[in-house]
Every structure is written in C-alpha cells, then in structure tokens.
C-alpha cells in the first residue's frame, strides 16, 4: 500500500490485555465477527469506556447500537482507534425489559450524546445521567419507540407546529437578556435539505446552536430489517447519502453482508467497484463545492453551475455503467450487476476524456474559489474544529482530515482494490472551513488517480477472467446471532453498518452509522462564539446530507 508517509503503528492491544483491563467488570464475552465483545453491567459503562480510551487507546466511539431482544435490551458501544481502525472492541450493555436504564457514556465520548438520544427515541432505553434526554429523530409528542418489539405502527400520532414557532412573534428568547432566538430551517436554502437549527444570537454573534434533526427520518433501518439480504436491501443504501454517493453506500452494505455471510468477490468486480465508488466520490465532492460556494457567495449562477456541469459528466459516465443517474443499485452481494458497457473501449475513452479534462477544471475551481480573496476572508480561520474535539464527536471523512486527523478507511482498513493502487490520503492542518474545502478539492484529484489506474487494469484484464459475480446462494441465511460491524470510507466519512442475524433471510437488527450524523453534532463546537454568516459557512463545509443524518 502506498500511502505516502509511514505512521507510527498504534500499539496493538491483545485480547488478553483487554480482558485484564476490564477484569471483573466483564460479566461475559459476546464476540462479534469484527471485534471481541465484553458484556458489562449498566452502571460500569463509564468506567469501562474511559479505561478503554485512556489505557488501551480506543479513542473513537464509532457507533452505538441499541436493540431489543425477547428478554432484554442491549446497547452496544463499538469502539476503534483513529490511529488504527482495524483494532476494535465492542462493549455490550444489557438491561432488563422492565427497567431499561443504563449509565450514559456522554462524559467519556461526547458523541454518545446524540447516539443515546437516538437509542432512547427509537428503541426506548433510558440513559441515566444523560445531559439532554430528549427525542432526536421523532417529534417530541411521539408515542412509543418504533424499533421496540411491541410497537404498533397503526396507532395515530400527533405532531405539533409550535416547537417551530414564528420567530418574529417571540422575538426574544427571554425578556431578561438581549439575545434573539432565530430559527434556521427546516425550509431554508442554506441547510442543504430539511434541517432545523435553533440559534440564539447576541447581536451578530452566535451564542447557542441546537441542530434539530429528524425532518427526513424515513425509517431506513426498519426498511432494511424488513428486506431480504440478497436483493431487497441493496436499493436502500443509495438513498442514505443521495448526493450521487450511491455506490459508496452500497459498498458499505455489500462489505458488511459479504463478511457476515462469508461471500467472496472476484477481483475484477472489486476493480469495477473501486472505480465506480471513486466516480461517486468525485460527483459528491463536486456538489459539496458547488453548494458551499452557493452558501458563501449566495451565487446560484456561476460557481454552482460549474459544479453542476462537471457532475453531469460524471453522472453520464455512471449512467453508462449502472443504468441509472442517481440511484444506481449496481452492486450485488458477491460482485456487481454487470460488466462494463459495450463497446468497452468507448466507455473507457469517455471516462479518460473526463479525467483528462479534470485538471483544467480543478484549476478553474481554484481560480474561482480557493484563490479568491473574498472566499478566503470568509472561510479562513472560521468554523474551527480542533482535532481533539473532532475525535470526541466521532468526526470522520473530509471533516476529520481537514482537522489534521489522518484517518481514511480506504487505507487504514483496506477493502476493495485500494490496497494495490497508488494514491495518497489528503490531510490539512488548518482545522477551519478553508481546509475542509481544500481537502475535498484534493481528494477529487486523488480519486481521479485511482480511477485512472482502475481503467488501465480494466482495459488489460484477461478476457476470460472477467467474472463480475461470484456464486451466491439465492437465499442467504447467516447463522443466528452472528453480529458484525463493518464500515467503508463514504463520501462524508466512515459509513458503517451493524447487522445482527437472527437465522432468517432478513436481518434481526440493521443499524446504520452515518458520518454526517457525527459531523453535524460537532456544529455547535464550530460555530458558537462566531458570527452568524460563519455558522452558515461552517454548516456548508460539513457537507451534510439530511438523508444520511436522519436515515
């Protein structure tokens, strides 16, 4: 693997060390396919997690999965290391059905705040000591917890409008202070979808920010739990991060399910996957740049249209490959749906043409954006996200790499064909909005390098070894109670999936770890104390997609 700089390898922690570290607090072992799992008591959560973080170096709470069994509730904390994400450990916290109360992990990992709110909202586990135990995805007035066993979906629900009261009438949040309460969204051009940000302003300075999400909570996890592994789940990942990142998302599911059911993927299919995924990344980053320019300049006509122009080309290529412009549904478990389109030379030439034109286009972006003085004034030194804070919130992807965190699953937890290709992980140390834009722009160039190499490989691949799918049984029934968490580097960061199989052809629990969810939760850290236009710029630089935040 050529990844540029060699880093100090993170100290490997063996399972014996972990056992010794957790000691008596481990009630039992509950190993997952990806990691050793330790069952701990609900009131030991904080002490175990902080020991794992401080003593063993597990500084990344990648995910929290909550689920209900027939006889108990369970919260699973998936930990890994920023320095070496292949080292993983799961902390399993069972609670009784009658009294599902568990200690909060929020003091150890800030990102547990939102995760535990979601676990309470959807599954119904209470977290003792949680600073803000509200619902997060569903409205406050919702009755019941939809992913719990006895939820009745037919029951009527009430939703109020008042929580989004007219911002002009109650002009001041409280009469004593001079602050002003401002609703941004849920219908607002700068929120990139339907996000609602409750903001308190003191003059032009942002005092308090509270992102209110859930306006696009389309029950993705429920949908996936109702689908069969083989074919019915694959269309949904396209719709999580719908900014043309479809193939990257599909890969997250493909990787998880393939590891769960032990399916091989032909090498040729891996190359096609790698190429398609990187095309998606380019399209996705182009939109991020275009909308960021729209946010910062308020300019619909120039830079935004440049981004759209280039995306059209990528979408054309992807349409040739997959048959769809946006929702590709191209990956299959064990490979991809079909080979490159015929005539193959034409497709390869078309893609090469795009790559050849790309450097000139990137230069154009640099002229328009990063070299522009106004843009620099707007973005430099605004929206600061320190690396330590970013790690606390579980930030990944370009957001983390813009804060100097050298974390890219394509290299650190290799999958696909990335291992055999020449490319670099881009990081910037600025920690500000400007660095995040720079990272995206350079990643476009890196992706182009990867695609170029894939095209060479695809062109010269032996004609009789062009297998696009391995043999996969028509019905997949992984062994009951097999649990796995796997992730890939999506366009926005670490996109992970936890699956627990229950012996049937559908997952028992399907949990999505969305990078945008974590990145967005860091928004208050980036914007409090800054001016309100910088809040908009910071939000744009996070490049969130609400479909993935809310799932």
């Amino acid at each position, binding site marked *: 693997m050529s990844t540029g700089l060699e880093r100090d390898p993170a100290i490997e922690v063996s399972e014996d060390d972990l056992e010794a570290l957790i000691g008596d607090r481990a009630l039992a072992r509950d190993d997952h396919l990806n990691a050793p799992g330790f069952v701990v008591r609900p009131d030991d959560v904080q002490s175990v997690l902080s020991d794992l973080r401080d003593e063993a170096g597990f500084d990344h709470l990648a995910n929290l999965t909550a689920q209900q069994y027939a006889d108990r509730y369970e919260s699973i904390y998936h930990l890994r290391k920023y320095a070496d994400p292949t080292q993983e450990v799961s902390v399993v916290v069972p609670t009784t059905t009658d009294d599902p109360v568990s200690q909060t992990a929020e003091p150890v990992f800030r990102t547990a705040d939102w995760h535990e709110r979601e676990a309470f909202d959807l599954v119904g586990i209470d977290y003792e000591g949680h600073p803000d135990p509200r619902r997060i995805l569903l409205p406050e*007035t919702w009755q019941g917890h939809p992913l719990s066993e006895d939820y009745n979906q*037919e029951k*009527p629900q*009430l939703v*109020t409008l008042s929580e989004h009261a007219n911002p002009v009438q109650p002009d001041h949040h409280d009469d004593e202070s001079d602050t002003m309460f401002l609703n941004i969204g849920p*219908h607002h051009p700068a929120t990139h979808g339907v996000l609602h940000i409750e903001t308190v302003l003191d003059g032009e300075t942002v005092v308090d920010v509270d992102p209110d999400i859930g*306006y696009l909570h389309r029950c993705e996890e*429920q949908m996936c739990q109702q689908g069969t592994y083989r074919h019915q789940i694959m269309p949904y990942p396209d719709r999580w991060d719908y900014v043309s990142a479809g193939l990257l998302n599909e890969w997250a599911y493909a990787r998880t399910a393939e590891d769960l059911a032990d399916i091989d993927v032909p090498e040729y299919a891996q190359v096609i996957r790698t190429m398609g995924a990187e095309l998606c990344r380019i399209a996705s980053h182009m939109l991020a740049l275009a909308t960021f320019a729209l946010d910062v300049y308020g300019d619909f006509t120039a830079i935004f249209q440049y981004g759209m122009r280039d995306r*059209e080309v990528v979408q054309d290529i992807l349409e040739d490959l997959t048959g769809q412009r946006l929702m590709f549904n191209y990956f299959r478990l064990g490979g991809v749906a079909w080979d490159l389109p015929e005539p193959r030379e034409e497709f390869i030439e078309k893609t090469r043409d795009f790559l050849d034109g790309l450097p000139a286009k990137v230069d154009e972006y640099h002229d328009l954006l990063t070299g522009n003085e106004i843009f620099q004034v707007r973005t430099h030194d605004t929206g600061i996200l320190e690396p330590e804070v970013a790690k606390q919130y579980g930030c990944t992807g370009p957001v983390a790499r813009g804060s100097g965190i050298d974390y890219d699953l394509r290299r650190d937890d290799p999958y696909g064909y990335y291992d055999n290709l020449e490319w670099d992980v881009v990081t910037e140390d600025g920690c500000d909005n400007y660095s995040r834009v720079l990272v995206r722009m350079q990643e476009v160039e890196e992706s182009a390098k990867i695609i170029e190499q894939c095209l060479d490989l695809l062109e010269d691949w032996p004609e009789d070894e062009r297998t696009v799918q391995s043999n996969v049984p028509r019905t997949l029934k992984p062994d009951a109670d097999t649990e796995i968490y796997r992730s890939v580097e999506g366009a926005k960061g670490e996109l992970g999936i936890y699956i627990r199989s229950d012996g049937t052809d559908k997952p028992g629990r399907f949990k999505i770890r969305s990078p945008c969810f974590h990145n967005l939760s860091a928004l208050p850290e980036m914007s409090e104390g800054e001016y309100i236009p910088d809040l908009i710029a910071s939000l744009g630089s996070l490049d969130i997609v609400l479909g993935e935040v809310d799932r």
Partner: protein
Amino acid sequence: MSSDQPRQSIYDSTAPSTDTRDSRIGEGADDRFNSKLREAFGSTPFILTKFDKFMNWVRGNSMFMLQFGIACCSIEMMHTYAIKHDLDRFGAGVPRASPRQADVMIVPGTIVSKFGPRMKRVYDQMPEPKFVVGMGSCTISGGPFQEGYNVVKGAEEIIPIDIHVPGCPPRPEALVYGIAKLQERIRNGESTPVVVKPYELEEFGDLPQDELVQKLADDIDEEDLVMRYNWADSP
C-alpha cells in the same frame, strides 16, 4: 485621452444615428417588435380574448419555483434547474428561496411526520394562485419507504398536488415534461380536484377527545396547532 481634450465626435451632430437601423429594417414603419404572433393578427393591433384566458396564458409562461429541497429528488431537481437541462428555457425555473415569492412548489422527496406540518405551513405561505408538482414516488405513495412508521403516504395527504412525476428519482427530462404539462394545464385553466382528504393543521383543543389526545393534554397547549396522523386510514 485627457479630459480637457473632448472627443472629436462631440463636435458632430448629437442627433441619434439611425443608419444601421434603417438599413436593417428597410423603409416604412418600425416593426422591430412585431412577431409572428403579431403578424397573425393582421392589420389590427388588438386581440379579443377573455381576460382570464389571457392571465392563464401569462401565468403558465412565467412561473417562479420555490427553492425547496427535501430528499434525493432535490438533487435531480437542481440538475433540472442547472445547465444542460435548464428549466428556465420553458419560462419556469427561477428558484425563489421564500415561499412568498413563489408560484410553484416542487415537492422533491419523502414527507415524514415531523415535516408534514412545516410543509403545510410553507404551502400556506405561498400566494394564490399556487401550483404543486409532486416529484418522485415518495410524493405519490411514500415510494420505497411506504411501510415506514414515520412516512406520510404521499404528499397529497397534506397538500393538493397538480402534477405527479413518477420515478425514483425522475430524470430531469421527466421533471421538465411534468412542468410542461403543468404549464399546459394552467394555460387551459384546468384545476385538479383533491382526491384525498388531507391532514389539516388544527388547534389541539378542537381535536376529538380520545386516548392519545388525553395523554398529551399536559404537554400541548389548547391553541397549539397540531397535525394528527391516522396511520391506519392511510391508503
């Protein structure tokens, strides 16, 4: 050229020069503004039509769209506005950020329970006459998410919809076709009957008392606007 040295042309006549124009349009009346349409009217410059009909014709050819992104379809909607597909060619494509400046709302995505009341409010804020294009399967029936506990089974459960564009997501061409169809309907003065009894925003105090309302009585004020979803009744 320094300013104390006036240009030579100032010394010449300042009367407007019409040489170019004259050579272009030839002798006689200036008919630069005459179009094929004008030609069709013959010698009279007057049109006899119903004012309503004229207004419908104008309306259909000048539509401001609401800049309203919800979900996946909004990406294709952006592409429809942007270069290559350029919806503006059809007299319908300037996205306005405020509902108060918009004539047409394209609903590009899944409506979930929390967003329903907000969408209704945005729709109410648009000035009459207003039109709605439902983009994608989610606005027709809930689409791939129809079985979700939180998904409204079609945008028509909340606001009336004039044109449904199917697809997941529809291609930009499909949306352009949908808009063109809407323009055609507006020009012909057609309106759409609402076929679903929509969910309304009601004051909490006006709701019929049942188990759910009584349970929430402590949390919600009498005057608060609420939307009640009867999931079991959904199509």
